């Protein structure tokens, strides 16, 4: 038995809508198998994971809290990924954004003014954008691989934030625990309703998603992002600059990650501590792909991933399933999403008997032939000029 792919004439609209749902179903099936292996009742476990939290108002609120940073980061990543830039370091930009935003409430703890909140949100975006600028600058200036540099900067950011909350910014009255002083009232994102954990970050995230959707779908900038992502060569003919796009994409996704960071710091934790890095920057990559890089799809995808976090906590309490199972779910989900995307561009056929290739002869070839072919490919992909 053998799989064979047949290229479709055009992208299948049906499957581009269906594929995330097929992926979700496949993840649930794989999850059920996982629970069987762990010796837990599969259906009851899945129920605890994905249905129970929805019926509990407290859990619903927690889903909203978790979906907020995921949406913000993933919406930025969608722009970046669409433009053909791989920003893997959103986690670092999220951390630095949180730290930059915390600068004002930490250094000017007594400053009470309605201007403080907008200011710290802008500072958060600035921090994330500046941190995102590093890999973008290195890529456009030196041709450095942005995947590796942006990822390395995550580790650097984690260490830096760890240092600052234990060292210079540590709350002297904090009993030695790492973390800054609690922010004063004017530096805190208000709750959505009284005594709620859910804060206005959720509204910001929703507005951002709609705004980015508008930008991608209706503006020239959005067109530029898509063209350069699909064919840098075509983009150049249209007068678009690949290098400027790299800078823009990283600044934008960095700013969104930074905004996520400061909204988490100011809305949820209300201070900067050493537990800010929860892997949202990486989970947001899954969110971006599950949402098919469409900002509105991303809002839905963020809610699904947030549900898996909350369900994971519930399953740990009621079933004794490791909370790591949620991470496994998320990883599996990304796998299935990527696998199902194949259906959009290809027909997949299962062949029973392997077709024999006729005339399978090896032509002797010399390295020089390969080198010539290599040079040709280099020119074709546009490196030659």
């Amino acid at each position, binding site marked *: 038995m053998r799989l064979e792919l047949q290229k479709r004439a055009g992208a299948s609209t049906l499957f581009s809508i269906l594929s995330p749902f097929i992926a979700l179903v496949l993840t649930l099936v794989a999850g059920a198998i996982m629970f069987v292996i762990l010796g837990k009742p599969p259906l009851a476990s899945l129920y605890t994971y994905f249905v129970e939290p929805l019926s509990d108002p407290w859990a619903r609120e927690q889903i909203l809290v978790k979906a907020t940073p995921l949406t913000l980061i993933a919406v930025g990543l969608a722009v970046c990924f669409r433009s053909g830039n791989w920003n893997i370091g959103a986690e670092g930009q999220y951390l630095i954004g949180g730290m930059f935003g915390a600068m004002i409430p930490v250094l000017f703890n007594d400053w009470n003014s309605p201007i403080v909140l907008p200011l710290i949100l802008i500072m958060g975006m600035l921090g994330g954008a500046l941190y995102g600028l590093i890999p973008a600058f290195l890529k456009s200036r030196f041709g450095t691989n942005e995947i590796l540099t942006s990822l390395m900067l995550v580790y650097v950011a984690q*260490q830096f934030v760890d240092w600052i909350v234990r060292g210079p910014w540590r709350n002297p009255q904090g009993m030695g625990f790492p973390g800054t002083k609690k922010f004063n009232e004017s530096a805190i994102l208000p709750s959505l309703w009284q005594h709620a954990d859910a804060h206005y970050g959720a509204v910001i995230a929703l507005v951002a998603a709609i705004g980015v959707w508008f930008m991608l779908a209706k503006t020239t900038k959005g067109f530029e992002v898509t063209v350069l992502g699909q064919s840098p060569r075509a983009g150049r003919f249209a007068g678009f600059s690949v290098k400027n796009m790299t800078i823009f994409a990283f600044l934008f996704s960095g700013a969104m990650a930074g905004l996520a960071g400061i909204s988490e710091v100011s809305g949820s934790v209300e201070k900067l501590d050493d537990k800010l890095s929860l892997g949202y920057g990486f989970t947001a990559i899954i969110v971006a792909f599950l949402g098919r890089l469409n900002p509105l799809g991303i809002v839905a995808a963020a809610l699904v991933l947030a549900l898996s976090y909350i369900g994971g906590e519930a399953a740990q309490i009621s079933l004794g399933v490791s909370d*790591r199972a949620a991470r496994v779910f998320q990883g599996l989900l*990304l796998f299935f999403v990527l696998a199902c995307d194949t259906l959009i561009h290809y027909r997949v056929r299962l062949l029973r008997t392997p077709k024999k290739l006729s005339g399978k002869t090896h032509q002797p070839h010399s390295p020089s032939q390969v080198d010539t072919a290599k040079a040709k490919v280099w020119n074709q992909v546009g490196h030659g000029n």
Partner: protein
Amino acid sequence: MDVWISIILSVCAASTPLLLAATGELVVERSGVLNLGVEGMMIMGAVAGFATAQVTGNPYIGALVAIGAGALFSLLFAFLTLTLVANQVATGLALTILGIGLSGMIGEGFVGQPGIRMEGLNIPFLSDLPIVGQLFFGQDLIFYVSIALVFGVSWFLFKTRAGLTLRSVGDNHTSAHALGINVIKVRYLAVLFGGACAGLAGAHLSLVYVPQWVEGMTAGRGWIALALVVFASWRPGRVLIGAYLFGAVTIGQFHAQAIGIAIPAQFLTSLPYIATIVVLVLIARNRRMTMLNTPASLGQSFVPDR
């Protein structure tokens, strides 16, 4: 003198996992496939090796199982990117995310348990020689495997017909296909080899370097290995140099922390990551060399036309 030997030995121990994973990834990339899942395969190897050693009491069986686990895990990547032509960058990331999650779940019961260390070799007379004894005859087996692997891979890639085939697939898969080479099969084998190497690298971490299971213990080493391949401009010999350079930086910052240099520990810990970025920039500036050595089909999917 003893101090220096112990420092050199610890540099070897820190470099070996990087060297193994980078050498494996080099073969993968030479075949035109970019597998960003090294970190995930490595940590799966680490947990599989540790768990097996705990159950069987034998670190060598642990290392073998780690190799198998790494290879098996890479098969997931191969199926998605080679058979289903999924995006290689995204799939590699998926492999890393899944690997970190899965290893955390598998290893949960092993956290805090004392590990079983793979002891160094003990060859009568040779291991007891002054200075060179411990270095050349007294280290763990995986260290010697890693060194042999570099020379083996170098010989394979540049001196054998199969190596030429692999490089041709990586440089121009369309031409290779036209010559009758089974591009997909070659790439499957390369990815499996890379997975096996990353698995062994993980085993070295959990059986020799740390001997313990700590969640997320690879701490970006898989990514550093990926950077090393770029740094080495896809040459096995340079991977060796690069890996030991990074090992030296890692050990150097440990010693600096131990001495109590007036730099916060967090800054020293981030040194290897900053060094990676610096090295990537330096190497990228030399465009001609990078261009000549980059496998031309790197990261591109191939669908055979029938």
